């Protein structure tokens, strides 16, 4: 069944009273509510707050994750110091840290941003580290023969070689960022899409909840699209892109 047919059936069920608005609002109602929230400026405000949290968390998480991956990837000592602890922490479902984060950081913006940062640091770390270690050693030897020093090797060989992996990591990190945001915003938020959804739950407004969910989905799609554009531009040299 095509999605459009599904929406039509859904609308029909709502109109005929088979589907109570307390269970699920009709598509038309969701559209209207969405439009109303948009026009009143409420939706843009909550969206801006959520985006701000994701952006701040991502900035911190990606910097820390990429920084640690460079340290661990580029030196044996760095690997010994950094990799083992990170691999251990990785096995912990980081969302389980929410209670601890609330104790540490209170219930303001800090624990929300910290959760996003923590969640996003792992994928970029793991993929960039693997990418650096996976660079063809013969290419590095070739670079040395042609006179590249450590910095030159890093710039011309190691980092470009690790880029495909890093972008895979970025894609995972973005996915985790939204997931962390959803969880973080369940905790005592007074603004943001999560707050919008929680607030709507208390008033049995399934239409508002659905608007929030659709928004989450759209943001996820947008993030994926952004990485895709980045890949097309930065990895144009890859055989897969070259041939298409």
């Amino acid at each position: 069944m095509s999605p459009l047919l599904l929406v039509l059936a859904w609308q029909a069920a709502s109109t005929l009273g088979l589907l109570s608005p307390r269970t699920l609002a009709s598509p038309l109602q969701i559209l209207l509510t969405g439009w109303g929230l948009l026009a009143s400026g409420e939706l843009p405000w909550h969206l801006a707050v959520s985006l701000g949290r994701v952006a701040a968390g991502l900035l911190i998480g990606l910097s820390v994750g990429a920084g640690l991956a460079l340290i661990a990837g580029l030196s044996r000592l760095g690997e010994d110091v950094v990799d083992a602890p990170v691999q251990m922490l990785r096995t912990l479902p980081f969302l389980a840290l929410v209670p601890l984060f609330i104790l540490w950081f209170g219930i303001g913006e800090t624990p929300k941003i910290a959760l996003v940062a923590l969640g996003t640091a792992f994928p970029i770390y793991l993929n960039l580290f693997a990418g650096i270690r996976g660079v063809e050693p013969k290419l590095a030897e070739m670079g040395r023969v042609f006179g590249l020093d450590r910095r030159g090797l890093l710039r011309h060989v190691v980092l470009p070689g690790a880029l495909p992996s890093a972008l895979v990591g970025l894609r995972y990190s973005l996915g985790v960022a939204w997931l962390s945001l959803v969880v973080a915003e369940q905790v005592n938020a007074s603004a943001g899409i999560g707050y919008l959804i929680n607030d709507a739950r208390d008033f049995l407004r399934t239409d508002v909840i659905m608007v929030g969910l659709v928004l989450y989905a759209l943001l996820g799609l947008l993030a994926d699209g952004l990485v895709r554009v980045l890949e097309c531009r930065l990895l144009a040299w890859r055989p897969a892109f070259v041939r298409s």
Partner: protein
Amino acid sequence: MDANLHLDAPGRNGTAHVRHLTRRFGPADARPVLDALDLDIQPGEFVALLGASGSGKTTLLRTLAGLDPVPEDAVVALPRPVAVAFQQPLLLPWKSVWRNVALGLPEDARGDARARAEAALAEVGLSHRLDAWPATLSGGEAQRVALARALVREPGLLLLDEPFAALDALTRLRMHALVLDLWARHRPATLLVTHDVDEAVALADRVLVLAGGRIVLDLPNDAARPRRRDTASFAAMRDRLLDRLGVREHAA
């Protein structure tokens, strides 16, 4: 590195000069891969090095290329810069063809990189692929880019480690002609490692055989180039080399 600095100067008259080079892998009493090897290459001389698989050809080349350290008691003095073309082209896939060639330029010559890379690529007949990605090149084209990258350095010593081994027979013959042409024009001292006896006889001024860690045969060849492969002298030289390599062509 510093300890060997005094050995780094080119040999007298720009001769490539190797003395007493010993190299072993594993325990100190393991049979050495290179056993007190001596080798000289005159400026502008084209030398081919033959040897069975595992005889240490690549090991020697790696030391000359500076990839492996020179042992304390050995002397390795080479005309610089040294340039290498390996069996695989080893192009950086994320750099366009001309940028790969520009990578070969010495640090002080990176100013007019594009122009010099273009000139080198024109010499190997790839002017039309300047901005192509390496992934779009054929095996022969990629190897020609690797040659251009080596030549753009204006090397004093050109090291070629079986650069044609992975190519089809027809492409290999074309590459032979190209390499001779480039060598005649730039005249670097050249050491071509190969296991193809015909290739060695067709190209080199001097053919060496490496066995037991040493040069065991050193045959000069002053026949004019290009060399026909169906002459008696060509066959005679091929037979001597095959004989020394332990391959008998004429069964008793």
